[in-house]
């Protein structure tokens, strides 16, 4: 029978996970991607990856340090964060996250220190007033590949735990069909890697524009985006075929919406375009592909979180979302971006990106490289 329903009165639920959460998942994902991209050059001492690893390390550090701040801000009672640490709640992925984040960030800091130690020592050898501080920070050592590898593996374990928990935390929410899919953790991981590659390309552009790094990372980006498209295509195919009821339901909840269709086209374009460019012209296009890739990784999270929460669980149609100007909206996004930039400036001021670190052993690089800062 032909049934027509008009909803006359119902409640609108506001988003409970604010744009802060988008920022958190974006930054922590990029940080994890940065760790992955830094591993070949540092933990596995592949010299041809070293220069890439140096920029990737910067991505991992800046994003990894800014991310927990965004997460804390997403709590409506941030001052109570210690409540996580006085209970045992193994059924909650978020509780596991509260243990994993400090483990990851601590591991990342130690790993970064082992990687940057030789640079610290070089700065300590220069005749300057800060030299003693650098010598102190280097703790009397230089490059130690065994130590870097050990720390790198710990950082990798932390990164894997972050990927697992951030993915599972969202994917287990059965009440939201769009989230409740085993594809989501994979999509988070792949888009994070693509975003990290994108940020490496951007930073590389401002820190000497190393062509070798650009070509290498553009290739990584192309491969990652290919995987992103494959997984996305599989998700869509499963949804359209109706074989998998969860995916069909997820697709069904948004397919009728014009706004969601526009978003889908946008997402495909933001993946396919940098893929094509990075594949066809890996040299000289890094800034462009990088910017699109970072944008695409962010958009994916915005769509999943803010878009996902605009799908009512019981009511008809969609909840409306208007980005507030204050801390719960635009100011939060701008604030996190500002914090990231601040961290970038501080870190590159302390350990400036070496100008030409790619060729030859880095330990031989002249200390004069210190004069060039990455983002200046």
């Amino acid at each position, binding site marked *: 029978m032909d049934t027509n329903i008009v909803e006359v009165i119902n409640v609108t*639920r506001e988003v409970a996970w604010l744009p802060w959460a988008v920022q958190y998942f974006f930054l922590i994902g990029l940080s994890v991607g940065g760790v992955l991209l830094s591993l070949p050059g540092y933990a596995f001492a592949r010299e041809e990856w070293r220069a890439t690893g140096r920029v990737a390390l910067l991505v991992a550090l800046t994003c990894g340090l800014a991310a927990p701040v965004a997460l804390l801000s997403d709590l409506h009672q941030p001052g109570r964060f210690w409540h996580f640490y006085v209970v045992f709640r193994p059924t909650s992925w978020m509780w596991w996250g509260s243990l994993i984040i400090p483990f990851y960030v601590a591991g990342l800091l130690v790993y970064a220190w082992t990687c940057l130690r030789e640079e610290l020592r070089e700065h300590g050898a220069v005749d300057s007033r800060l030299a003693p501080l650098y010598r102190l920070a280097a703790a009397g050592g230089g490059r130690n590949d065994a130590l870097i590898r050990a720390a790198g593996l710990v950082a990798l374990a932390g990164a894997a735990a972050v990927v697992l928990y951030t993915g599972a935390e969202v994917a287990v929410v059965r009440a939201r069909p769009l989230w409740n899919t085993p594809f989501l953790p994979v999509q988070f991981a792949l888009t994070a890697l693509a975003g990290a590659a994108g940020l490496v390309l951007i930073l590389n552009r401002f820190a000497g524009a190393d062509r070798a790094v650009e070509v290498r990372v553009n290739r990584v980006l192309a491969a990652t985006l290919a995987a992103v498209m494959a997984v996305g295509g599989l998700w869509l195919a499963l949804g359209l075929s109706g074989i998998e009821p969860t995916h069909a339901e997820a697709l069904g909840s948004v397919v009728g919406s014009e706004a969601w269709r526009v978003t889908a086209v946008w997402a495909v374009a933001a993946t396919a375009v940098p893929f094509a460019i990075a594949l066809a012209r890996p040299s000289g296009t890094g800034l462009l592909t990088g910017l699109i890739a970072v944008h695409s990784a962010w958009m994916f999270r915005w769509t999943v979180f803010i878009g996902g929460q605009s799908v*009512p669980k019981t009511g008809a149609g969609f909840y409306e979302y208007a980005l507030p100007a204050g801390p719960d909206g635009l100011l939060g996004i701008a604030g996190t971006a500002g914090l990231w930039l601040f961290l970038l400036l501080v870190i590159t001021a302390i350990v400036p990106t070496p100008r030409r670190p790619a060729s030859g052993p880095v330990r031989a690089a002249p200390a004069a490289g210190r004069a060039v800062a990455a983002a200046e």
Partner: protein
Amino acid sequence: MDRSRRNFCLGAGAAAVGAAALAAPPADAAAARKGGDPANRWAMVVDVRKCVGCQACTVACIMENAVPANSFRTIVSTYEVTEGGRAGTAMLPRLCNHCEDAPCLPVCPTGATFQRRDGIVVVDNTVCVGCGYCVQACPYDARFINHETRTADKCTFCVHRVDAGLLPACVETCVGGARIFGDLNDPGSTVSRLVRTQAPKVLKPGQGTDPRVFYIGLDPNLEGKVEGTPTLWRPSARPHAHAPAAKEHA
């Protein structure tokens, strides 16, 4: 509701015969319960045929529980349903279902959300960090972040009144007699009898949450996420462009 009030006196200590048809909670979930009297299992039956959509319950709840502006622990969703050329208005009072297997419980990273041994699901807002995970996990949009307490909030079956031997405010105020509250552990209670004899429905049974708010006369079209034209008027939403278009479908 007189009969519901009487159930309160009979409720305590009664055997769990009436609830025989209802599934027991998972063992670990039951073990985690605290507070409340395990002799009771509070539940609500909503006879939607009797609801006139006056929203007296909505207002009573707001007054009783100091619910901030633009937030709701309960609301009577109202739909215009046209079927086979005949139009009618359907009312659907919504509230927390105090699910037997509540998905909002395991996700809470602090234990602020918990279930009492009488089945009532509550939030300790002195513990809650306002992470909003439970808001995501509830399949019924029953939860929200209270802007004044900055913690998770939802219907508590008016637990403070129930503990004092009173009915929830919405039940007390319901002019149509549509909301009936009582103890499922008491086979003689009205809710037990209605659940036994009327084969009431629950919302989104496919979610496996085992709700303890039952509906008599529920239109199957309204059981899950409602497929229809979005609301003409929504509290807290800005006036929007679809409204005039929506009206044409009615």
